[in-house]
């Protein structure tokens, strides 16, 4: 041994060579003293538990097969279910904005209101909802300007 003490390998070897003493397995305290009544009942109940388990597995398989058959029949009779429709709320909101923007489309002063030079064409092309929102704001501003005090 070059250094003081043991290496890990030496410790493992020492433990292995003394394992019967260190990890006693044949001491009288370790001897099997037999089953209690609960153990005996548990052992005797094993065949019944196995039968019950098999019955549960078989029942589960039958249920799964029935589910597959039912679904197949439904598809055959009713047809493939339609894909889920779009969510309602955004569609309605979009329709409202479009209806409000119609006022500008029908207005004679449309060209006067919007100066094409000031429009950012990229935004207009790729952000239509933003344009619609701006139109709505302009409508509100016009309504405010149209009030009698002006």
């Amino acid at each position: 041994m070059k250094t003081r003490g043991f290496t890990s390998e030496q410790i493992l070897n020492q433990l292995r060579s003394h394992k019967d003493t260190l990890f006693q397995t044949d001491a009288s305290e370790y001897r099997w003293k037999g089953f209690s009544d609960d153990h005996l009942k548990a052992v005797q109940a094993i065949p019944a538990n196995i039968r019950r388990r098999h019955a549960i597995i078989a029942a589960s398989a039958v249920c799964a097969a029935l589910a597959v058959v039912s679904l197949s029949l439904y598809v055959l009779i009713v047809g493939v279910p339609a894909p889920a429709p779009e969510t309602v709320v955004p569609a309605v909101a979009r329709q409202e904005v479009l209806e409000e923007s119609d006022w500008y489309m029908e207005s004679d002063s449309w060209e006067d209101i919007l100066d094409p030079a000031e429009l950012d064409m990229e935004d207009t092309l790729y952000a239509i909802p933003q344009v619609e929102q701006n139109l709505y704001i302009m409508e509100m501003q016009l309504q405010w300007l149209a009030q009698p005090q002006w």
Partner: protein
Amino acid sequence: MGVIDDTTLFNLIRQGDVTAADKLVNRWHSMFTGFIARITGIDDAADIVQDTYLTLFKKFHTFKNINHARRFMYKTGYNRAIDLYRKKRTHALAHTEIKRNMTGSSSGLDSRLLHDLNNAVTILPAKEKAVIALKIQHDFTAREIAVHLGIPTGTVLYRIHNALKTMRQFLSSRQIQEDQS
């Protein structure tokens, strides 16, 4: 009549054969009890082992083969031993129990080294002690220990490394003390 192999015993137990169950438990008992006793001490180990057997036979209908049953037994016993250890912190108890058992069987060996080795194992944390017990007592590989205790192989290797490091330090300090005295 030859020795009945574990698989035959397993099949007989599935038919509710009490004698086969008794033979199988008798075959496993001392190793399993020794493993649990290293964590908790022999008195608590006896109770844990009895409870584990009861759970084993209540769940026996779910096992695919004998190895599955044995892994279940070790994992259940280990978990119960660790739970009990946490509750009672039986460090001192395990120490005294093992020491008492050793005195009768250490004749002819280097008793001082044996005593130091025993103390080195005893001071280990319960989880490291369990891993070392399976490695030394059962000659399990890290993978087999991982399967039996239901922990990752990396954790097993880490615990073995830590345990050996602790034991190395303990034995070195003991050697220094002896040199000084």
